[in-house]
């Protein structure tokens, strides 16, 4: 892998790859959007109303608002992860679409940047849909502040898209992705404050949580929902950028090893 590790050469040629995925998605847009949204929405509303009615406010937020802010980040993470795992893997390994594109004057850097920006775009849609529910139910503190959630969602999508591409690069089959969900995504959902504040965890787990990207995503999204400026914005933004970029660079090296050896 070290031999294949180098800085990506970014070019605008990623756009036809993004466009290819967009055109395919457009054919099935409605079921795809519904499928993407139903699950997080049901959790959010079910737990928010059901469990929320039994719980006191958390730091001055109703439980439903608290959970909605977590769900924005969580839903965005899932959408980006699913896209670069299952969908990218289909295109790379099963349909050999990447092989076809590589025979054109395109590089793997272009293809994977196209995949990453596409995953970011698709997850942006997921995050914004949850945001729309927040608007609709009036769960926010200051409407104008919630608009900042849109760039945050894009950043979260980029972060988990980049990380997921690493799994795509090393996976022998679809089954392999289950490990990533069981060992990375699910623990993250439970440790990063989607359903309850991180401060409820034992100190050791709290310090683990501080390193996880979803924590940084939620630390940005939650204050914005209730109309406050998040603390340490630069730290959270940097963490998400670093996780995503590092993921992309490592994934690129591993995929180069896989396809261009």
């Amino acid at each position, binding site marked *: 892998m070290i031999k294949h590790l180098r800085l990506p050469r970014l070019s605008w*040629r990623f756009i*036809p*790859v993004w*466009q*290819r995925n967009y*055109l*395919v998605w457009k*054919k099935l847009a409605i079921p795809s959007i519904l499928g993407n949204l139903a699950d997080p929405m049901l959790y959010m509303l079910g737990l928010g109303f059901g469990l929320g009615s039994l719980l006191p406010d958390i730091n001055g937020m109703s439980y439903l608002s608290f959970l909605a802010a977590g769900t924005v980040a969580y839903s965005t993470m899932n959408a980006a992860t699913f896209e670069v795992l299952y969908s990218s893997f289909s295109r790379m390994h099963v*349909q*050999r*679409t990447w*092989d*076809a*594109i*590589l*025979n*054109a*004057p*395109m*590089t793997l850097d272009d293809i994977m940047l196209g995949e990453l920006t596409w995953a970011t775009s698709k997850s942006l849609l997921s995050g914004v849909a949850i945001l729309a529910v927040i608007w609709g139910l009036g769960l926010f503190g200051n409407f104008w502040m919630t608009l900042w959630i849109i760039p945050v969602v894009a950043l979260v999508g980029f972060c988990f898209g980049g990380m997921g591409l690493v799994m795509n690069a090393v996976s022998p089959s679809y089954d392999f992705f289950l490990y990533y969900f069981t060992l990375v995504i699910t623990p993250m959902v439970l440790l990063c404050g989607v359903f309850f504040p991180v401060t409820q965890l034992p100190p050791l787990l709290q310090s683990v949580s501080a390193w996880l990207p979803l924590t940084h995503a939620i630390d940005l999204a939650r204050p914005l929902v209730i109309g406050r400026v998040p603390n340490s914005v630069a730290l959270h933004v940097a963490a998400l950028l670093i996780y995503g970029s590092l993921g992309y660079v490592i994934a690129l090296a591993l995929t180069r090893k896989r396809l*261009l*050896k």
Partner: protein
Amino acid sequence: MLKVRGLTKTYGDTEVVRGLDLDVRRGECFGLLGPNGAGKTTTLRLLLGLTDPDSGSIELAGIAVPQRAREARMKVGVVPQLDNLDPDFSVRENLLAYGRYFGMSKAAVTARVPMLLEFAGLANKADAQIAQLSGGMKRRLTLARALVHDPDILFLDEPTTGLDPQARHLIWQGLRRLLAEGKTIVLTTHFMDEAERLADRLAILDHGRRVVEGAPRALIEAHIEPAVVEVFGEGLADWTRAHAATLCLRHESVGETLFCYTATPDSVIDALKEVPALRYVHRPSNLEDVFLKLTGRDLRD
């Protein structure tokens, strides 16, 4: 059009390509033949700059590869061994999407689509889904897709493997038409009849080396006696012991068959007629005889 010197590529301990030299002239069809594992597909990947050689130089359409592979690929159309058409798109959309990867505008590709569909014999299938196409149609669409940017040179990796005879002939017609238009073609195959039909010149590769290079007819004349009589049946061993050395210029026993290479097949056949239990096939020598002589009869997997 293509110039390769001293090309080598090693995977682990296996030298897949070992000091390969090739020259392909503009407008000719050049065949790369070889048993499985001879390094044909690896060579094509090296020529496209999809993998870096350990040593040697490649010049494709006057452009150094892999240094400027991206520019070189602008000049090349590729038909890969395994179909990788985009199953989420229709026939027409496949061509449109592929053109974009070459930086073509939608208008530029759209203008070429009718001509490409006509070439592929798919004019009435423009809106069909890929899953509805037969194997032959998919291959023809892949060929049309490789022409979307009007390349000077085409790389075809086993273009007719898995096709029925009708579909193969249709592909060959298409390739001849391209040659008549002045395109250069590099084709790998292990169908000897395909190489004999299409290739102006060919190279036989084995274990990553070029064993021989030349025009198909010239190679047959240089390496094999004019005729072959294949003999099989009851009593073959006795007949071989008694007659093979005197009647054949060269002979070879493979399993239950005797290959008798000769310039005077009639005398062999006269002798065979006296032994009714023996059956035979008389045929002119062909490229397959050259191939088997030079690369051996052992199975390669």
